[in-house]
């Protein structure tokens, strides 16, 4: 349906779009060095065994900040499949991108309130988040990678816990712009106190939804039940419970994401 003339115009426009796209889409990434960390949920037998509790995390790249409305908008304008009017029910529930005013035609940056552009994008499902990361040749971080980055090598454990709990205790408000708070020791912003975040394997927490059961051995492939490594870390309980309540096509008013990338 495109005429030869349009084809030419498109070819000329392509570099301009590429440059614009690159500038908008470029998300600063930080190399997270390899390390060991204690995952929150361990096999029961390992809970009191101090040497076996740590797992190795390979070095990887992590987005310095969550993906913003501006960045996600650029993605949607280039991938109409992920526009609110086109989104499939299997990939997202009906609140997808609720907070964007323009819900038909192309997503125009002029439509979003300027103040919101630098806020983390929310109301996105796991599928949308995964598609965004794939489009950047990236991926979502694994839960272990994400928790390891949050843990920040126990750099400022007490204050971090306080910040996390403070955010959990306060009912929802529209999120502020990313990078409003200082970065942690790894140079990563907003892992606590801004939004919940999707991870690649959010559906890997194996305890049953009624969290009082310690896990039925026959329910899963024999590897058995898990126990919390630190019963005092009730903030971690809340994060794992939150992830457990999610399905891939869910969106949330305070649920966003960031991307990661293999080191090699």
């Amino acid at each position, binding site marked *: 349906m495109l005429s030869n003339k349009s084809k030419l115009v498109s070819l000329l426009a392509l570099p301009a*779009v590429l440059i614009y796209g690159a500038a908008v889409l470029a998300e600063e990434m930080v190399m997270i060095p390899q390390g060991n960390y204690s995952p929150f949920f361990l096999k029961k037998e390992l809970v009191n065994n101090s040497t076996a509790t740590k797992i190795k995390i390979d070095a990887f790249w992590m987005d310095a900040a969550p993906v913003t409305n501006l960045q996600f908008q650029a993605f949607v304008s280039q*991938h*109409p*499949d992920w526009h609110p009017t086109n989104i499939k029910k299997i990939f997202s529930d009906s609140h997808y991108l609720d907070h964007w005013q323009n819900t038909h035609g192309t997503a125009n940056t002029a439509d979003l309130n300027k103040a919101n552009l630098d806020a983390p994008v929310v109301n996105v499902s796991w599928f949308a988040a995964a598609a965004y990361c794939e489009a950047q040749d990236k991926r979502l971080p694994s839960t272990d990678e994400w928790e390891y980055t949050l843990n920040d090598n126990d750099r400022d454990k007490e204050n971090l816990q306080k910040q996390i709990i403070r955010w959990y205790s306060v009912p929802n408000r529209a999120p502020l712009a990313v990078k409003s708070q200082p970065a942690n020791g790894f140079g990563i912003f907003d892992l606590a106190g801004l939004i919940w975040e999707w991870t690649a394997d959010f559906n890997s*927490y194996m305890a049953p939804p009624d969290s009082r059961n310690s896990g039925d051995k026959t329910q899963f492939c024999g590897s058995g039940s898990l126990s919390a490594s630190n019963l005092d870390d009730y903030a971690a309980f809340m994060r794992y419970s939150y992830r457990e309540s999610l399905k891939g096509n869910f969106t949330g008013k305070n649920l966003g994401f960031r991307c990661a990338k293999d080191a090699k």
Partner: protein
Amino acid sequence: MKIKLKHKLLLSFILACNSPAFADDHEHEHHPQQSAASAPSTDSIFNITDNWTAANGNTFQLGALGGKPTVIAMVYTSCQYVCPLTVQNIKRIERSLGAAKAANVNFALFSLDPERDTPAKLSEFAKLHGITNQSWTLAQGNASSIRKLAVTLGVKYKKVESGDYEHDATIFILDKDGVVKYQADAMNKNMNGASDAVKALLK
């Protein structure tokens, strides 16, 4: 028609070289490589376009299961207890349908274990369990395809240090358009509900 195809190829080429693609006001969808007529319905799992490799080495997408109802589960061959039980239960459903009806149903097992469950391994597993007829599909995919399918179906799983997987045990019944219509606990010996669901879809 020819012009259209040329442009499609051009677009594909551009897409392959660069991530961003220019928006076109006239088009609302990028059509996937398959030349299938209608796009899958909005809640069909056929919307996932990842490639899978069957036990016989052929590659396919989920949409290939379309046209018939499908009994589907996610398992892996090194699994000791839950997975053999799951396979037994799917066979129970197959038997309950009778040979004539069963021929109009797909039985599909998708492996959670991409490293160890090669097509050869899957063939071996099929022989071991006597599930070699045309209706059965055993598939291997890459890690991200597996995660995507699991998230779509609602299957929880996690790889553990030993290389094994902890996972839910659920059998899903899809209609011919790839929409999940019924779920059964794979650990339960009673598959009547699942069987009835399939029969209803064959009417």
